[in-house]
C-alpha cells in the first residue's frame, strides 16, 4: 500500500517523532511504499542539522536523514511552519536575508500543497502529534 505520514511535533519533546519513525520502519519492512513524510507545526524542528543529543540517546535528526537515504524517502518540511520556527535551507536563507541555514540532509522545504497531495495520492494518511 501507499502510505503518507504527517509529523506534527519536534524531536525529543514529544514521542510523536519516534512513533512515526518506528511506524515507517515497520511499514517499509512489510513492503509498503511511503509516499511522503510531511513535517508540520513543530514537526519542522526534526529537520535541523544543528542538533547534538547526548551520546547515550538516539539521534532523531540523523535517523531521519539515514532512513531517507536508505529508502529514498521524501521528507518535506512545510515552508510556512519552518519560517515561523527558524528552519531554513540555502534558498530560504537567501530569500529572507538570513546569514546561514540549518536544514539537515534528506529534508526539503516545500509548501502545504505537498501535504494535500499526499492526502490525495496515498491510500492512508497517518498523523503523529501531540
Amino acid at each position, binding site marked *: 500500500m501507499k502510505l503518507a505520514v504527517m509529523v506534527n511535533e519536534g524531536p525529543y519533546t514529544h514521542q510523536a517523532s519516534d512513533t512515526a519513525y518506528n511506524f515507517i520502519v515497520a511499514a517499509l519492512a512489510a513492503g509498503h511504499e511511503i509516499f511522503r513524510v510531511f513535517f*508540520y507545526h513543530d514537526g519542522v524542528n526534526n529537520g535541523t542539522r544543528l542538533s547534538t543529543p547526548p551520546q547515550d540517546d538516539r539521534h532523531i535528526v540523523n535517523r531521519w536523514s539515514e532512513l531517507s537515504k536508505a529508502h529514498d524517502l521524501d521528507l518535506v518540511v512545510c515552508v510556512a511552519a519552518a519560517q515561523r520556527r527558524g528552519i531554513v535551507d540555502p534558498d530560504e536563507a537567501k530569500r529572507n536575508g538570513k546569514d546561514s541555514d540549518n536544514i539537515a540532509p534528506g529534508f526539503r522545504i516545500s*509548501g*502545504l500543497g505537498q501535504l*494535500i497531495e499526499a*492526502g490525495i495520492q496515498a491510500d492512508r*494518511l497517518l498523523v503523529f502529534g501531540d
Partner: protein
Amino acid sequence: MSETKKFMYINRRPPYGTVYPLEGLEVVLIGAAFEQDVCMAFISDGVFQLKQGQDTIESGMKNFSPTYRALGDYEVTRIYVERESLEERGLTEADLMPLTWEDEDDDWAEKPSIQIVSRTQLSDLLEEQDVVFNF
C-alpha cells in the same frame, strides 16, 4: 490527481493557547485549490474557535478569526459544529460568528455555512470521509 476524495478537517482545540487552529486554517485554505470534497468539523474546545468578538490587541497575538469568514470564498461551504460540545460549554449558535457562502447555482444567494449537528450525525459524517486531518 484527477481523483476526488472526501476531506474532513477536524478542529478540536481552542484558539490562541496553541498555534494548531491557525496553522490548521492555513492547510484548509491551501487545500481549497485542489478541488476535493471538503468539510470542516468543530468539536470539543474547537467550537471556541468560532466564538464571536475575539480581540487580541492586549495579548499581542495575531487575531486570525476574520479568516473563518473568508472560508466561503474558498468554497468551504460545509462547517459542522457539534451540538453537544456547544452545550457542555454553555454556548449557543448565537455565540458563533455567522459564516456564509454564495451559491452560484442559486443566483449567488448567501447561505449559512455552519450546520449544528449531533454527535451521532458527526460520527456518521466522519465515517464517510476518505482523509481526516486534526488540528
